[in-house]
């Protein structure tokens, strides 16, 4: 997914390191600081759950592709895998797996394979849940 966690954290530094012109102080800077605070909180969630989410998603997509490999003539063995648990390595594998999943789902829909179509939709819901970020319950100002 983009932006990545390092993108966010580097961005939090960069956007505060450059104070900007006078007309961008005051209320605008306060708003910016609030956004940086929110991003920091979301980054804490991603730090805690992000690697596990990627490992789970990659395994689930691979299992879906494996299950369909025979019926849809998929080259699952050619897809990348990794033992490296960095976000970069997991995302590299994830991109290839997601691309293959998109191709499979298109083929499933074209064939009218309702059972597998529904299974993929359920997988999407699970993927979204794994990747979920929770907003803090901030009061209105």
């Amino acid at each position: 997914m983009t932006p990545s966690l390092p993108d966010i954290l580097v961005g939090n530094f960069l956007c505060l390191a450059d104070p900007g012109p006078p007309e961008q102080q005051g209320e605008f800077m306060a708003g910016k600081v609030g956004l940086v605070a929110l991003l920091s909180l979301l980054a804490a969630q991603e730090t805690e759950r992000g690697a596990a989410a990627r490992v789970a998603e990659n395994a689930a997509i691979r299992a879906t592709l494996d299950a369909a490999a025979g019926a849809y003539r998929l080259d699952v063995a050619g897809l990348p895998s990794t033992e490296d648990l960095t976000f970069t390595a997991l995302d590299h594998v994830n991109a290839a797996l997601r691309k293959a999943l998109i191709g499979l789902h298109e083929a499933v829909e074209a064939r009218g394979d309702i059972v597998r179509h529904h299974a993929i939709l359920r997988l999407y819901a699970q993927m979204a849940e794994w990747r979920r970020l929770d907003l803090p319950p901030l009061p209105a100002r």
Partner: protein
Amino acid sequence: MGLAERLEAYLTRIWGQPVRVADLSRIPGGASRETYRFVARVEGEARPLILRRDPPGSLIETDRSLEYLALESFHDKLPAPRPVAMDAEGAELERPFFIMERVEGGAVASPFTVMPYGSNARTVGEAFFDILGRIAGADVTGLPLARVAETPAPEDCWRIAVDHWAGVIEADEQHPQPIVRAAIRRLRRRPPPPPRAVRVVHGDYRGGNFLHAPDGRILAVLDWEMVHLGDPLEDLAWAIDPLWNPFDPGTVAGMLPRDEALAIWSRASGLPVDEAALAWWSLFAAVKGQAIWTSAAKEYRDGGFKEPILAVSGWYTARRHDEILAAALLRLEGLQ
């Protein structure tokens, strides 16, 4: 020369008399335009104004003349700022911009807070859906906006909308997104019925894009940069998208129960709500959102990671719209 001096030179030229600019300050929020408040002093009079200028990078590529003409079309019909001047070339302020009158005495509530309208939620909600209904009910003929905006055939509204936002995802995607792609295919497989009439679509009508008074009255509908002509259900679906209401499942937009909101809209617009068509436009709303967040992620990276609003859009809202899309796809198949 700073922005204030540039503004002074511009206003002095177009108004033909000396203008002083004071209290120039940027307003937070919004990534599609830089927004500044300032006071123009001319002939002893102080005019509170708003400058909307294109940013170096933006969530969405839009034609600012449409936003300007939308304000010209509606400022005397519903709460909306009166436009003052526009420079589509933008030579004098480095980028294209327009200026509008400033509406005083209100606040913009973030939809991402708990109870954003407090005890005024009902008052705000009744006005919010009434105004949206009035936009949807407005006869397009004769509006200044109609001079420039393309008028699609009713049966083409859905396709134009899907083609546009699917194209944005295609162009800006940096990581494969199977959920939104499945949603796009579903939209194309089962198109909605054409609208009864092609109407003005605000394009970003939602919590966070209007000013309201302490008593709950809506003082100004803002952020018309995605305005176009199309199916008015597009706006209604966007306004009630769950993204804009993270903490109150009993209402839409954190304001009113869904059936009440739709009844107010229908009464004000004179249009019925076709639930099947609204379901289609609701799925579309999440696709459109995901397209905007996809662009945000790209702009965040291209812009050197300096605008945190783009990071929030490209990250939290993108993840949330994946959840919304996945749930909608299951629901449309009759699955949990």
